[in-house]
């Protein structure tokens, strides 16, 4: 029996970072407690996987982008390195709690942020084809409706009518509305509209605590919420500024290095918040596409295709880099410009859902990603 004393607090939104929590088990909905929890960090702008995890073993790397390869990368093995900004991730790797999937992407090749972001959240077969998101559909299948705590329901979590949204406007003297007025409005409207007004009343009565606003604090808060019995089982944090067309840099203090450090800190903050729930947790990054292999004329990279996915969490028992390495020679690149994606990142998402929500891969493939032939990569990541 779950303890349903939920602290249904707060949605948290900040410039540059926002958090969405969902999947709060409700009585009568959840047949079994899900085996774990899942957190998705959306890296908006298209992260350059070749700088984050440089495949220094490929002789073409330095030829194609010498100024973008960090000098002091951490050698993970004889082929792959890790950007020095990802120190904490490397520490998780040392503890066998983090992995990397390289040369991967959602199946999107057109290089538009808007389409790409929609596709990686929607998880459909083409941009704007889905009105729900792959995580929302997964929660529905796992019978874990809940609330996405945000002003706008993020696409990735859409998929169930019982999902609710909320945004705390912490304006002085505005946190109490006239309940009598709302009651009157509720009675004056039909059943469905009346429910909306009752919802407004309920939300207005929820107390807001001291709300953290930076990405790290959001992650720690989310981790803490998910660690509680009966707490949410999914969270989503957005980070932006990965669209590094110019001055991308190679080291820790450079543009991309700074953004990668934020990702690193967010993952570590999740770890702090999750506490003992870490062992059943999986944290994954998604991004709409990778970037060009070669550096452009403004010391940056342009929109591309293949990239990397960073995975962390106690659910991972053996750290590794998983890749079907396509090579970086010109004729090995996608359209002779981008890193080729050889692993469908939807497969990675499916594996993480399978691990965290306990759903069958075939169900995820056909009902979440609408692709019954989606390969199962679970064993590569979790065994």
């Amino acid at each position, binding site marked *: 029996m779950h303890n349903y004393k939920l602290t249904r607090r707060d949605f948290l939104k900040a410039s540059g970072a926002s958090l969405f929590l969902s999947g709060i088990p409700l009585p009568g909905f959840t047949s079994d407690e899900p085996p774990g929890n899942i957190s998705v960090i959306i890296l908006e702008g298209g992260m350059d996987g070749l700088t984050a995890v440089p495949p220094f073993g490929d002789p073409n790397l330095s030829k194609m982008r010498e100024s973008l390869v960090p000098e002091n990368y*951490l050698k993970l*093995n004889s082929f792959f390195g890790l950007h020095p900004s990802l120190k904490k991730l490397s*520490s998780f790797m040392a503890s066998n709690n983090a992995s990397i999937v390289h040369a991967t992407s959602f199946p999107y090749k057109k290089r538009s942020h808007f389409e790409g972001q929609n596709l990686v959240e929607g998880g459909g*077969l083409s941009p704007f084809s*889905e009105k729900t998101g792959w995580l929302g559909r997964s929660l529905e299948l796992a019978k874990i409706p809940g609330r996405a705590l945000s002003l706008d329901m993020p696409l990735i979590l859409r998929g169930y009518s019982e999902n609710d949204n909320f945004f705390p406007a912490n304006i002085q003297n505005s946190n109490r509305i006239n309940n009598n007025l709302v009651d009157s409005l509720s009675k004056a409207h039909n059943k469905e509209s009346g429910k909306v007004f009752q919802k407004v009343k309920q939300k207005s009565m929820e107390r807001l605590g001291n709300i953290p*606003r930076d990405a790290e*604090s959001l992650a720690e808060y989310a981790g803490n919420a998910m660690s509680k019995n009966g707490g949410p089982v999914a969270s989503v944090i957005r980070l932006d500024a990965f669209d590094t067309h110019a001055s991308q840099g190679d080291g820790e203090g450079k543009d991309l290095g700074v953004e990668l450090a934020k990702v690193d800190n967010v993952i570590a903050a999740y770890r*702090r918040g999750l506490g003992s729930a870490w062992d059943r947790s999986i944290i994954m990054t998604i991004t709409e596409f990778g970037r060009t292999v070669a550096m452009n004329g403004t010391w940056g990279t342009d929109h591309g295709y293949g990239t990397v996915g960073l995975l962390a969490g106690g659910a991972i028992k053996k750290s590794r880099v998983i890749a079907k390495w396509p090579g970086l020679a010109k004729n090995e690149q996608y359209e002779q410009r981008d890193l080729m*994606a*050889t692993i469908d990142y939807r497969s990675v998402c499916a594996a993480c859902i399978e691990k965290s929500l306990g759903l069958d891969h075939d169900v995820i493939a056909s009902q979440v990603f609408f692709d019954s032939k989606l390969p199962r990569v679970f064993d590569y990541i979790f065994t």
Partner: protein
Amino acid sequence: MKHLKNLLFLVVLFCLSTVVNAAYLDDWPDDALCGWMQQSSPPEYIIEEVKKRGILCTDGVASINPNASQNGGSDTQSTEGIEIYDIVFDEEILGELIKIAPVESAADFTEFFKEYQLAFLQNQLTCGFKLKRVVYENTSKGEIEDWNMAYGSLIINGSEVTLDGSWRMGGLSNDPKYMKDEVNLRLTRDGHIVGKMAYFHLSINNGEAPRKPLFIELKKHQNSKPLNYKIRAAAEYWIDVEDWAGGIMYVFNCKDSAELQKIKSAKEKAVKLYTDALAKEKAELRLLNKIYQPYVLGPNTVFKIDYLDGVFEAKSAPEDSKKLHDDELHKAHINGMINSASLDQSIGLRTLMSIRENEDNLTLVVSAAEDEDKEMDPLKEFAEPAILKCGKLPGFWWDKLSFVVSTTDIEIAKTQKCYFDFFNNQTNSEAKKLYRAILSASPRILSYLKSDTDR
């Protein structure tokens, strides 16, 4: 032959229809094809065309099939060829990586204590501690700020150091768990405190977003003065936090449990003595209360003076005095007459006067200096002996007499009574008369000074 002709006709017709369909569909937009695909049994040639074009149809809308091998795309629909690249760190790097401790919990430091030789104290030691910020913005030596970021007790048990106190940085620092649970410190044999602790380096005000603490490491800092736990000398532990500021933890007043017990007993004894003394004092004050009218106030009692009806009538405008001391107000040379019905006297007064006022006392200070007007002559020779006998009152100087009008300090009230007794017992009736006259009119002189002088 006839059947052969019919068969040939059908074959030709089929081929032609296919060609016609294919040619016809070439002009169809993808979405039109997908519209047909929504039917329960779409025509085969439509299906073929959809496959040929490599499009996917969702709700009648076409999209590019991501799995179609176009533009040189690779096959992502198979796990064949996926390799696992094991992560191999060498021992040294592995040690460093684990030390990064991404969890940022003080508890993670435990295994590193083996790098130190730890002390082991037989008796528990309890000290006071306070933590201040050291700022390096202006000098590399650091400037210690004069306020406490945290304070409380520091307890050393064996080698383990725990803190019982509170942070004063607002935000999450108000949560006592950081002081209680997120401190993992040990005392080394040479008196240093090492380990890891949650550390709030920034102040958070109400309404500001809270910030998580840093988890800093206490090391043997070159500036630190380690604790000599044998003689219990005070210690200073310098803490490196950020480039612009660090911290310093003062550890002082260390006592073992036996000493603490002694202090506790002594405190209990002192409380009893104080309580007894207070009871005795109250008895004395009650006795005094029978003599004076309530005017000069002391705690739990009042003094009584029964001739406070003196009236001051100015003969000329007050002359301002330029020199003012810190709590001196309305200082002026005044000239007038004091008339008291109770005392049945009328007496001239021309001298320098001022008011001294603070939270505890309101005092009229009268100058009896040699160079003051002859009206003050009777008091001039008695001011110094009175001070020597009774002590100093607010506004004290050797040639000045103070008249405390109100006070919350029982000692001042007693001193004031001593002055009163001193002049009351004088055989010099002029001095006695003048003192009593000024006392009788002191409230009204105060009012006069307040209303008729500027400062």
